């Protein structure tokens, strides 16, 4: 059986299910000190002074650090590869602790104590004097000219404003006979809710600051810590053990820079900095809330003549990934339906809210909701068939985006739509469910998406891999790419075994990254690792295989070019007869008295291509109008992610993404006190993450294309499953009730007011 495509059990299944797998919290040394951060209790202002008298009296207090004590260095936190071009560098807009308070919960001081209770008691006893300004919560307010800027470098609070135009929008929309449809759409602030909270511990060893952290991006965190502390890259060492979920939140420096600094304050003794769940909600990152205004001009033949979008993205207090997300969103707007003249404009705006950063699918769930809701608004107004309309206008094979050059190398989107349509019997049901009456109604909805696999050419794509052969013919596989629960380690093992020609049990994957010894990789984000890091694995495996065959040729007195490796044996190319085992080659190469060689391979891959993954969600719901509740009766995602490396883990990714999409569509939203900017529901009781009992049966299917640019024909899968779910549910609600919602989540209270407004209670 071919290893690529085989439903191999996860390589970490046993360790994780038996509790043997070590996470950051399992590794904290017994003598570690405990650090706690003092967060501001105002949303906007300046720290004038601290009174630490009572706090210093708490027994077991080791150190107190305030915003007046940290290095005067502003640093960026976004988990992007560094750009040596100043213009493309991330915005450096925060210090380790900040005197200028920019949101309710900003980091203004930290205490280090022998134990957690002492640290907490000291926090309570610190008195702070502030100068307070009125918090600015909304993008509209923040853009008003009279406000005190949140960052003095951005007097108008606009982090970045960007725009593009394909063709002439003004000219195109004047074409006679066009139908104009416009709409406003809005998405909420939500959070990743990874089960392992934000945490790290740091110490000094052999003159280096070592930070052990639950991060998706160890090599990038090393760079950020070195910048934040003003020390060399090589003075920092980051270790990333097993990790309990990231979803983009850990594609950012969270606790690490401050933790590294705190270790230097106590002569290198280990210091643990672990956020509570509440701190993880408020003081890490959230998904950007976005507002969109979309205008479409459609011909009577169902094709777009012109489309435009204006997008506003609420950045919160610090830049983090900043404009990259809403830029991705308006790019996605263009790429999905690249027909007619297209104009896009986007603003990213600072507010006094928690910092928004990367989260699964990076701006595309926002535009995915707005755009696919808008398409159903178009078909409702024009009478076009929703599937035919999408097929007419959607991206086709060979499309080259004129602004990024990203090319559609493969697409199974039309087949995905057909598969989902057949599964749900969508068209027939959609007609049946029109014009229902009564309190309980059914509806069907669908939505499509396209998604870039990596970040090229916006950002660098690079990855490296190392393989070291053991004397028994097995080998260590080491990658800089990180396992964050998505199953990366498992598919890397499959790729390595397949390409070298051995069975998967011969591959010993080193899951932990240590920046002192692990090859470079930017880490787990975008949906890049199987595509970019996978190519590094492939190249390294080919290199290792060549070295094994070279030595086998020496042993057999044959030309290595005539040899191959099949299922752990050296064979003649295209023949089955076993000439030698890989194990025999391995032991001889190590101990040969005449020709010892220690066979290892290391390759890096500079990726200068990208490709689109596609997919669709079809959903059927039942709406209880008096109870303001939506019940999902059936739901399926069908994905074109190229060749599927492991069907079982791929389905797991789809299920997880659909679950996240269901929460995004139906129940999740972070709420804030409009007066203070304080987060109101930053805990797992009041933040309505779906529980298993709330989750319907999830169906996942695939259309397997063979992408010519993917190492094994594969494309993005990690993030995409979250994208189409919310708009499919919204469109199903529209079908069921005739109520076209322009925002998510579709939670009961919002439905109550919408149903009341629509006269459904009369």
């Amino acid at each position, binding site marked *: 059986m071919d290893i690529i495509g085989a439903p191999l059990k996860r390589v970490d299944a046993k360790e994780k299910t038996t509790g043997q797998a070590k996470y950051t919290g399992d590794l904290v040394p017994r003598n570690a000190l405990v650090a706690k951060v003092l967060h501001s209790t105002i949303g906007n202002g300046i720290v004038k002074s601290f009174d630490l008298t009572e706090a210093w009296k708490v027994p077991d207090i080791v150190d107190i650090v305030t915003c007046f004590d940290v290095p005067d260095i502003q640093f960026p936190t976004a988990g992007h590869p560094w750009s040596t071009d100043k213009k493309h560098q991330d915005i450096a807009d925060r210090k380790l602790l900040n005197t200028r308070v920019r949101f309710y919960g900003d980091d203004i001081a930290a205490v280090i104590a022998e134990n957690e209770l002492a640290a907490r008691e000291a926090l309570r006893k610190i008195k702070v004097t502030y100068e307070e300004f009125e918090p600015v919560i909304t993008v509209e307010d923040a853009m008003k000219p009279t406000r005190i800027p949140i960052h003095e470098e951005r007097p108008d609070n606009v982090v970045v404003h960007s725009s593009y135009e394909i063709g002439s929008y003004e000219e195109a929309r004047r074409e006679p006979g066009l139908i104009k449809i416009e709409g406003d759409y809005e998405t909420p602030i939500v959070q990743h809710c990874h089960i392992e909270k934000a945490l790290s511990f740091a110490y000094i060893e052999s003159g280096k600051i070592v930070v052990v952290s639950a991060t998706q991006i160890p090599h990038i965190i090393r760079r950020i810590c070195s910048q934040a502390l003003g020390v060399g890259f090589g003075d920092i060492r980051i270790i990333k053990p097993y990790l309990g979920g990231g979803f983009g939140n850990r594609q950012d420096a969270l606790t690490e820079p401050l933790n590294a600094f705190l270790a230097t304050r106590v002569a290198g003794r280990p210091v643990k900095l672990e956020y509570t769940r509440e701190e993880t909600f408020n003081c890490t990152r959230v998904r950007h809330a976005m507002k969109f205004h979309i205008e479409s001009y459609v011909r009577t033949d169902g094709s777009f003549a012109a489309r435009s979008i204006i997008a506003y993205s609420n950045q919160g207090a610090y830049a983090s990934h900043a404009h990259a997300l809403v830029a991705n969103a308006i790019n996605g707007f263009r790429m999905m339906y690249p027909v007619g003249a297209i104009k896009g404009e986007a603003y990213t705006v600072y507010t006094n809210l928690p910092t928004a950063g990367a989260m699964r699918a990076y701006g595309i769930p926002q535009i995915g909701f707005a755009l696919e809701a808008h398409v159903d608004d178009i078909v409702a107004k024009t009478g076009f068939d929703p599937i035919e309309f999408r097929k007419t206008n959607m991206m086709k094979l060979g499309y080259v985006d004129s602004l990024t050059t990203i090319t559609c190398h493969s697409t199974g989107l039309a087949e995905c739509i057909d598969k989902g349509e057949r599964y749900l019997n969508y068209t027939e049901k959609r007609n049946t469910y029109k014009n229902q009456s009564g309190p309980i109604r059914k509806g069907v909805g669908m939505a499509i998406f396209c998604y870039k696999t990596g970040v090229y050419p916006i950002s660098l794509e690079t990855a490296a891999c190392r393989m070291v052969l053991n004397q028994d013919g097995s080998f260590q596989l080491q990658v800089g790419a990180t396992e964050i629960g998505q199953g990366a380690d498992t598919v890397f093992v499959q790729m390595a075994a397949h390409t070298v020609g051995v069975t998967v049990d011969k591959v010993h994957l080193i899951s932990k990254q240590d920046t002192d010894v692990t090859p470079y990789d930017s880490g787990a984000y975008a949906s890049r690792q199987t595509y970019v890091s996978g190519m590094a694995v492939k190249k390294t495996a080919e290199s290792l295989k060549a070295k094994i065959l070279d030595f086998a040729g020496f042993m057999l007195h044959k030309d290595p070019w005539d040899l191959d490796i099949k299922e752990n044996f050296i064979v003649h190319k295209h023949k089955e007869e076993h000439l030698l085992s890989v194990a025999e080659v391995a032991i001889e190469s190590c101990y040969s008295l005449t020709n010892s060689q220690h066979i290892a391979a290391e390759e890096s891959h500079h990726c200068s291509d990208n490709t689109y993954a596609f997919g669709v969600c079809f959903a059927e719901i039942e709406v209880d109008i008096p109870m303001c509740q939506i019940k999902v009766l059936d739901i399926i995602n069908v994905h074109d992610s190229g060749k599927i490396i492991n069907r079982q883990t791929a389905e797991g990714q789809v299920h997880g993404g659909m679950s996240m999409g269901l929460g995004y569509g139906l129940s999740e939203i972070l709420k804030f006190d409009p007066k203070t900017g304080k987060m109101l529901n930053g805990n797992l009781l009041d933040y*309505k993450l779906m529980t298993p009992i709330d989750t319907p049966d999830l169906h996942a299917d695939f259309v397997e294309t063979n992408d010519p640019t993917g190492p094994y024909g594969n494309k993005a899968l990690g993030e995409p499953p979250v994208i189409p779910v919310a708009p499919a549910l919204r469109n199903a609600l529209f079908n069921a009730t005739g109520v076209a919602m322009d925002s998510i989540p579709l939670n009961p209270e919002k439905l109550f007011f919408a149903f009341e407004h629509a006269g459904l209670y009369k």
Partner: protein
Amino acid sequence: MYDFNTLYEAKTVKEALILRNEHPEALILAGGSDILIKLHEGKLSGCDLINIFGLDQLRGITMEPDGSIIIRPLCSFTDVATHPLILEHIPVLGEAVNQIGGPQIRNIGTIGGNICNGVTSADSASTLKAYDASLELTSVDGIRILPYAEFNFGPGKVDLKQNEILTGIRISKESWEHTYGHYIKYAMRKAMDIATLGCSVNVRLSDDKNTIDRFRIAFGVAAPTPIRSVTAEASANGHALDDELLHMVGEGSLVDVMPRSSWRASKEFRLHLVKELARRATIAAIEKAGGKING
């Protein structure tokens, strides 16, 4: 690590009452599912606790010779939901507490804690109110019996004296006999949630099952405390099982409730739910009693 000062361990009820008398500021620790959260939030930092969790005398559900059902306060929600006496005579109470939190919380959280915390969202509260329960409150000075209807003063404020411990919850035979109840917990999730609104109805039908003999209805989160709607009850008693009954129950409930707008839900939404839940719980309770609307 939890930030409390002293933990007093009571080995008998008498010892608990003496500790309570000696340390009036100390909090009673039963299952701890609420206290641990408050400790985590830092709201009770440095508090003293009297642990009564080991007192098995305060566990169990029994029937008195007069037919009253006594629930001891340390019964966990799981104990209540699975006890034969509850399943046979007041199944709705088991159904109500079975919607609290998740399995772990239901195994550790106690019905006594649910009542004494005095929050309006307590899932056991509306059903116990609707069954006209009375409370046995014990101190070193003796036992005081108080109708549960008079227990709640305001949000988190109850008529539990500083030296008292809740030692029993009584539901009289007159309350439960021939009575069928239904509870609807309206929340944003099907588990691990607090009620946006809770509604508990119980009915006793006439022998011919054509009219309401006695109707009781209580709400959680419809006011600062769990409340009964006397207006809805008065309009329903003796009424035929028809649409007008459902209408009157809904409108009557609106007279007595006084929900507030909060960031969790608006007053308008809660008022809408009061009517709808009253209607649905009434229909369900009548059907359990063997009656039928417009039948």
